[in-house]
C-alpha cells in the first residue's frame, strides 16, 4: 500500500443520504418494479478508514484486514478487506430512492460468490439488475443480481438476493 492510499479520504456520492425516510415518498412500490430493470450506481473507492470501520462494526479483527506485516506474509501477499465489505460499497453505490433502502424492508437471505479480494484504493463498480420478484406466503419479495468488479475488471463478487418490501 502506498502512502497515498493510507491517507485516501472516503468520498460518498453526492446523493448519499443517511435518513432513509427522506426518499420514502419517491420509492416505487413492489407492484411498480419490473423484472429486468437495472439501476444506476456510483463507483466507490475503498479507503483504509472504511475497512477499519467495517472490521470494527462487524467485530472482525482478522490481522489480514488490519496488520500489514501479517498480511504480507499470507496467501494474499498484502492487506485485504473482509469479504462482506461489499455491503457498505453497495449501500454507498445505490441511490437513496432504491427499494434496497426502503424503510421497513427486511432481509430474508443473500448469496455471495467471491472473486478477487477488495483492497485499499480499489475502484469498485456495481451493476445491479432486478432478476425476480415474487409473492410468497403473502409477502412481497425482490431478487437482484449485483455484479461487483474492480478497476481491473476483475470479479469481486456476484451478489444474489433481495428484500421483503413493506409496500
Amino acid at each position, binding site marked *: 500500500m502506498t502512502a497515498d492510499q493510507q491517507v485516501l479520504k472516503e468520498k460518498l456520492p453526492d446523493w448519499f443520504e443517511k435518513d432513509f425516510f427522506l426518499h420514502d415518498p419517491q420509492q416505487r412500490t413492489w407492484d411498480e418494479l419490473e423484472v429486468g430493470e437495472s439501476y444506476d450506481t456510483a463507483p466507490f473507492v475503498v479507503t483504509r478508514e472504511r475497512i477499519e470501520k467495517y472490521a470494527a462494526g462487524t467485530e472482525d479483527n*482478522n490481522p489480514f484486514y488490519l496488520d500489514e506485516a501479517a498480511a504480507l506474509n499470507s496467501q494474499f501477499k498484502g492487506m485485504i478487506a473482509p*469479504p462482506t465489505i461489499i455491503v*457498505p460499497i453497495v449501500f454507498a453505490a445505490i441511490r437513496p430512492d432504491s427499494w434496497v433502502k426502503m424503510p421497513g424492508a427486511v432481509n430474508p437471505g443473500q448469496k455471495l460468490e467471491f472473486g478477487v479480494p477488495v483492497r485499499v484504493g480499489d475502484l469498485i463498480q456495481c451493476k445491479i439488475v432486478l432478476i425476480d420478484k415474487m409473492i410468497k406466503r403473502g409477502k412481497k419479495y425482490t431478487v437482484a443480481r449485483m455484479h461487483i468488479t474492480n478497476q481491473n475488471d476483475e470479479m469481486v463478487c456476484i451478489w444474489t438476493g433481495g428484500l421483503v418490501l413493506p409496500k
Partner: protein
Amino acid sequence: MADKISFDEINLGFELPMQSKSITQEKITKNAEASLDYNPIHIDPEYAKKINLLGKGTTIAHGMMTLSFMGKIVTDWVYPGGGFMKSLEGKFFHPVRPNDELKVYAKIIEKHPRPKKEENFLVLDVWCEINDGIKVSAGTAAVIIPN
C-alpha cells in the same frame, strides 16, 4: 504463521470452534455506520415500535451483520490456514434483536477434490442460534483449500 490446513487431512463433520456475540442496540447502530445501511428498522426504536416490526416492535439486527458473523467464523479458520473464501450464503428466518445472545456454528459437510489442488474446496454448514437454541439463520460457506 499458523499451520496450513491440509485438504487431505480434513474430515467431514469437523466443527469449527463456536463463536458468540452479545447483540446490543449500540452494536447494531455501529454496524449501520460501518455498513452504510441506515434502515430505520435497525437504528430507530421509535419507528420499530410504531410499525410493530415483526410482531414485537423492536429494532432488529442487520441480516448482513449476521452474515458477516457467519463469514467470520469461517475466515478465522481458513485465512490463517492458507485458504480462500469462495462463497457465503445465508437465509435469515428469525429476527436477531438487541439483548439477544447470538451463537455462530460451522461444520464441514462436503469435500470437493479437483485435478488442480488450488481448486480443491470444502463446503461448510454455517448457522446461528439465539438464547435457548432458537435457530435464526442458516446457510453455507465454500472455501478453497489449496494445500
